[in-house]
């Protein structure tokens, strides 16, 4: 088997999941549950592709996708933070809205190719045998490599991260310390939405350069599962995303070689299975919930009048 090919395929399939998962980790760290990832990814994929198609500038396209995702996530922020509607329901609404809007606006772009991010071989690193494959990728993949440690440091080692986590764990305590809970949650939602949309943009600007309706093909839901799988931690998100990409590309390769692929289908179930098990343990055991690091105030809208 071509191991370098397997590595690059795993990273390419893992990268959209990585961005979406990182985005949702930021959002959930602030205590807001967003099930609208699929919608956000589609908004990112279309806005990015449309910009690339019209301007030919992939970086501009990527930035437009980030902004579009950030703004789109603010719709959910307004519903869940200000209006305090049920976050599960409003998240589902965001998915439907994103899928619908991108479908309608995207009709003009179906069946048209555009510019895309090309692979950049990093001098030196890409010459390493086998592992050099990690450095024969496109710019967005490298951005993902950098983003993971940066986010880890921000979340766990800075005052900013402490503020974010405080808002997600004990919003009333954070509030009494003078932190503006609503503002922090809005900012987290905007940044998280932008990153999730970047995951979608990867599909239409780097993995392929085309737009078809619903091209995220369920990746938003996999990312929701990966957030729990990763215990709200960027490095584990990287492991989970790439692992998922690895299993997907391994089973494709086994098929291409003519090896039966039943076992691979079982492997593909694993992230979901782990997520279901984690969620079951969550609902039974509060200690477990705290131990794996779920934000205590996750999915609970904050209100100053209803302090516990």
């Amino acid at each position: 088997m071509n191991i370098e090919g397997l590595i690059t395929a795993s990273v390419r399939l893992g990268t959209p999941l990585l961005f979406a998962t990182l985005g949702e980790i930021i959002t959930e760290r602030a205590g807001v549950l967003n099930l609208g990832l699929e919608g956000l990814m589609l908004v990112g994929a279309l806005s990015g592709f449309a910009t690339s198609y019209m301007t030919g500038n992939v970086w501009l396209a990527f930035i437009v996708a980030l902004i579009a995702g950030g703004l789109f996530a603010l719709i959910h922020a307004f519903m869940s933070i200000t209006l305090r509607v049920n976050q599960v329901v409003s998240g589902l609404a965001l998915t439907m809205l994103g899928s619908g809007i991108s479908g309608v606006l995207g009709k003009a772009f179906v069946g048209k190719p555009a510019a895309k991010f090309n692979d950049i071989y990093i001098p030196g690193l890409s010459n390493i045998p086998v592992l050099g494959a990690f450095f024969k990728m496109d710019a967005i993949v490298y951005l993902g490599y950098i983003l993971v440690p940066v986010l880890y440091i921000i979340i766990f080692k800075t005052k900013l991260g402490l503020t974010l986590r405080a808002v997600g764990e004990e919003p009333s305590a954070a509030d009494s310390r003078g932190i503006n809970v609503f503002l922090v949650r809005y900012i987290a939602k905007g940044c998280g939405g932008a990153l999730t949309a970047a995951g979608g943009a990867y599909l239409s600007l780097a993995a392929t350069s085309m737009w078809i309706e619903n091209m995220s093909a369920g990746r938003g839901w996999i990312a929701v599962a990966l957030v729990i799988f990763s215990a709200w931690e960027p490095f584990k998100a990287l492991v989970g995303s790439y692992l998922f990409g690895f299993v997907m590309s391994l089973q494709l390769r086994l098929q291409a070689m003519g090896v039966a692929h039943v076992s691979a289908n079982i492997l593909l179930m694993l992230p979901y299975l782990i997520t279901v098990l984690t969620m079951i343990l969550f609902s039974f055991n509060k200690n477990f919930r705290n131990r794996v690091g779920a934000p205590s105030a996750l999915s609970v809208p904050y209100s100053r009048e209803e302090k516990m």
Partner: protein
Amino acid sequence: MKKFLVTILIISSVIMGFSILKVGFLYIGPVGDFGWTYAHDLGRKYLEDHVPGVITTYIENVPESIESYRYIEDLVKKDYKIIFATSFGFMDATEQAAKKYPDVYFFHCSGYKYNNTNFTAYFGRIYQPSFLAGIIAGMMTKSNIIGYVAPVPIPEVIRITNAFALGVKLVNPEAKVHVVWTHSWFDPAQEKEAAKSLMDVGADVIAQQTDSAAPVQTAEENGVYSIGYNSDMAVFGPSYYLGAPIWNWGAYYVKVVKEIMAGTYKAGFYWGGMDEDIVKISMTNNVPDKVKAVVGAFEKLIKEGKFDPFTGPIYNQKGELMVKEGERMSDEELLSMDWFVDNIVGSIPKASH
């Protein structure tokens, strides 16, 4: 305003001497899927452009259940006289509506239920151009490994994949067709990786039955020949795209609507082939003339009914004789095909639908 325009349109058409006929389409997917639904929608637009007096509409993303009945009934109540339900799962709902509304013509695509008054089952023999696509692939390959990106394991997909492999075998008995399933009709990122994995085992021609043009685009990036599916994908592969088996629903839609207008239409079961132009092979200039000539010769034989891709001897992957020398498979056998022919490498996943 809209009402006003419609009124004007109706009045002017009465003055001009023809009546308005409203034709409705039910789609399973979005028209932007670039695949199955996209091809039907091209047919709808073709119908509107080629038959004066016809107004069309469509409903996309209709669920494949008895719930689709609501959508059909809604069209009937809005005075649509001809309804095309373009997915297998709409069959029972369409049948029910055909019973309730005998003065409306119903057409259901890819199913097996019909009557002889107002309910037609229709489909195209796209396995014929897929066989021709196999001839192209078999003549173009140098490594004798041809990659095939397949969506979901249902008899229709298996039949078309087999036809492709038989085309390959006819011109190149040494070549093997490696099949990779994506378990999805469209997922560009995964289709790309499926194509890549096939190139990694040495495939130098990539064919597909999935909806998106990602395999074509990936082949182009890697300097490998590609064969598309459903509709023309040439813009995604200027240098290496060879062609595709494509749907041409417009030809059929125009034919039946004109017959209904003339009062000569007869409902029933219709499975049209290349002779009726409902399916076609498209070829680009990346295909050498020598190959085009062979394809053209077989295209002619198929159209004249002198040759059928599923003529024996045909063996399965275990080497068992499935169709005897000189025999042709019946439509029933074709519609329930659940085995691969002997030059395919890969297996059919079980218990999935």
